[in-house]
């Protein structure tokens, strides 16, 4: 099982790197030509720009684009130095869905590549005032996150109720029997072997992380409403999770955890001095690696699919779809696998870090991890 997983993973990594190598040249070429002809392209309205199209699909936005010229307006909440300001995101767009300036209560605002900025009267960005405005808008990603939260709460409260309704001793049925094996998988394969004795205390946390990542990964794969967002591929999402994992790990860290960081037992004092900064870097490197891994994996999948679809528009022929659509389907399948795999890996590593932080060391100089001790 473990071996199979590992070989599957290496296969995935291989295919990913092969494909990225294939297409990175393409994208780089696109990028350089775009840069060279930047001013000429900007003057042509409606000209197709691959980088902007892909980034537009991956990035957050103030309104939720549904189809054509229809968007779901979302509330914009701004914390400025003069006070809080709220208005609908519909005000930030003209009828062609191009950003336009909106005169708010305190300043004039306009979005540039998805980011809201304060503009001067001659519609140039006022960087000084923009840095004073904090954007807490319910953006597309936040709305999608709320939708995924609602789905999670509905699903799991229903499942919890069916345990009560059907009785604890009877076999699961329906949705319950779909969810229970996943919960058991997280408990028996992720939490129990990695956290150790006190795994039960961390089960709600580990399960929440797993299912939040899982559902947002899958919702991100759906190309239309309520999917079509890139929640788990946004660095703010993975950063938030990484910070929470960092806090949980380090707030629960016991004496021996800190001792192993700052004064490695059983070593020569010189070695102890040498290891302390390395271990301290490790404390921060772990959540950062969690953050980048999830963000990069999900975003890479989306970029690949979008690039493949964009090939049709680059070649300006419908025959390009003969190649790009099967490839996009193939990448989509890999994305579906990666969606689960990344949720699993994030949860696995988080529980491993928790396990390291709360692990009891019985003898000095015992540096082996005791994950599988029951």
């Amino acid at each position, binding site marked *: 099982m473990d071996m199979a997983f590992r070989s599957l993973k290496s296969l995935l990594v291989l295919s990913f790197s092969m494909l990225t190598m294939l297409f990175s040249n393409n994208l780089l070429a696109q990028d350089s030509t775009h840069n060279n002809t930047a001013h000429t392209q900007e003057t042509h309205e409606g000209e197709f720009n691959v980088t902007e199209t892909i980034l537009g699909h991956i*990035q957050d936005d103030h309104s939720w684009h549904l189809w054509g010229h229809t968007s779901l307006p979302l509330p914009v909440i701004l914390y400025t130095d003069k006070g809080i300001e709220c208005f609908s995101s519909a005000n930030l767009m003209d009828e062609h869905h191009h950003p336009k300036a909106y005169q708010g209560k305190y300043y004039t605002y306009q979005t540039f590549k998805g980011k809201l900025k304060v503009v001067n009267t001659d519609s140039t960005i006022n960087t000084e005032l923009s840095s004073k405005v904090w954007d*807490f808008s319910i953006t597309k990603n936040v709305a999608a996150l709320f939708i995924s939260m609602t789905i999670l709460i509905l699903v799991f409260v229903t499942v919890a109720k069916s345990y*009560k309704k059907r009785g604890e001793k009877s076999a699961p049925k329906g949705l319950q029997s779909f969810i229970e094996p996943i919960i058991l998988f997280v408990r028996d394969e992720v939490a129990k072997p990695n956290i150790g004795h006190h795994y039960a205390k961390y089960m709600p946390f580990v399960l929440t992380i797993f299912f939040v990542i899982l559902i947002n990964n899958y919702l991100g794969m759906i190309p239309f409403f309520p999917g079509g967002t890139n929640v788990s591929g946004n660095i703010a999402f993975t950063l938030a999770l990484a910070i929470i994992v960092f806090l949980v790990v380090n707030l629960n860290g016991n004496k021996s955890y800190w001792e192993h960081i700052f004064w490695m037992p059983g070593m020569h004092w010189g070695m102890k001095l040498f290891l302390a900064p390395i271990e301290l870097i490790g404390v921060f490197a772990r959540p950062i690696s969690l953050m980048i891994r999830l963000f990069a994996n999900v975003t890479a999948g989306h970029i690949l699919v979008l690039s493949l679809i964009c090939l049709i528009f680059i070649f300006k022929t419908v025959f390009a779809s003969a190649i790009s659509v099967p490839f996009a389907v193939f990448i989509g399948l890999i994305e579906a696998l990666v969606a689960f795999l990344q949720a699993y890996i994030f949860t696995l590593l988080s529980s491993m870090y928790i396990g390291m932080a709360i692990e009891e060391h019985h003898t000095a100089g015992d540096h082996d991890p005791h994950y599988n001790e029951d």
Partner: protein
Amino acid sequence: MLLEINPLALPDIGLLFWNTVAFIVLFFILRAMAWKPILKAIKSREDGIDEALSKAEKVKAEMAQLANENEALLQKAREERAVLIKEAKEQSDKMVADAKDKAKTEYDRIVADAQIAINQQKNAALTDVKNQVGALVIEISEKILRKELSDKAEQENYIKQLAEEVKLN
């Protein structure tokens, strides 16, 4: 700056805020309303299954022990039966032998008694015969003595006749 070049790698403060808040809220809602009851139910079911399994194992062991005990009892009963049969056989053999011995001694005794009785009778008869023979001899002698006195020839005939008579007797 590299971070400014790529907008994807630049976390948005508002998004970070909402993501953190949403996760914490979701965590507490799910922990209270879903994870605790679900994990409790799964745990109690697993405990129930474990308990049932261990109980079944115990009952099985008890059954095996009972079967063993039964087997032992049966074995003991068989042995006892064998002993009983052996004893009964010995008893009966002894009884038969005793009866035979008794019969033999009785028979011997009866035979001996009969022998004695026969001997007594024989002796009595012999005595009787002797007595009768004596009486006859005396009688004959008397008659002979009387006849001698009359005729000699007659006398001899008579003796002969008497002698014949004796033979007949």
